[in-house]
């Protein structure tokens, strides 16, 4: 399936692009992360420490154990610093 993957803040900078379409059979966020890490060094670097990252599925905060069934948009970013 094709999933839109978005990156924000320093995750975007390390990976070097704000969004991409990923063809994947991953069934969970963790599996998708493993696939991305295996791709290239810049992905491995961005995803070195998962505990420093947050993930949103279809624009709702979620977690790395969550499944991807029916999900069309996955976003990875550091902890938010609004306000």
């Amino acid at each position, binding site marked *: 399936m094709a999933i839109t993957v978005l990156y*924000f803040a320093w995750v975007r900078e390390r990976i070097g692009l704000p969004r991409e379409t990923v063809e994947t059979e991953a069934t969970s966020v963790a599996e998708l992360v493993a696939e991305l890490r295996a791709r290239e060094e810049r992905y491995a670097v961005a995803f070195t420490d998962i505990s420093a990252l947050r993930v949103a599925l279809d*624009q709702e*905060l979620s977690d790395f154990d969550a499944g991807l069934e029916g999900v069309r*948009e996955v976003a990875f*970013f*550091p*902890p*938010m610093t*609004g*306000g």
Partner: protein
Amino acid sequence: MRIVVQEAPFDFGAEAQAFASGHTDMGAIVTFTGVVRDIAGDRLERMVIEHYPGMTQKALEGIAEEALSRWNLGDVLVIHRYGDLRPGDMIMMVATAAPHRKDAFEAAEYLMDYLKSRAPFWKQEFTSDGGQWVASKDEDEDALGRW
């Protein structure tokens, strides 16, 4: 409930006045305003706020709805900017209207605590040395434990 996410500056005095005047059936109005600190001798030249357009409005609405359900509130206003800001610029404001002051204060603090750590904004500070992403603080995550 009014949630505004915009790049342009907002007029705090006019927004505060309009919010308060629009809720004269409420006895207590609280506002909070966040400012890019303008400190003499500070190296900060500007701040850039990145956000997640598709998610930001929804996330803020969710936080505001939760506040409306937890406290006895008449209304909630949230305005948050993104993009380029300079020292002294206002970043955001929240306002709450309630029959009693305890609800108005608590709801405003709740909105701020959640907005800090659960709304998709990321701050980057620029000095003459370049940009530095603002790190989230443990105390901001801990603050959510109050609610």
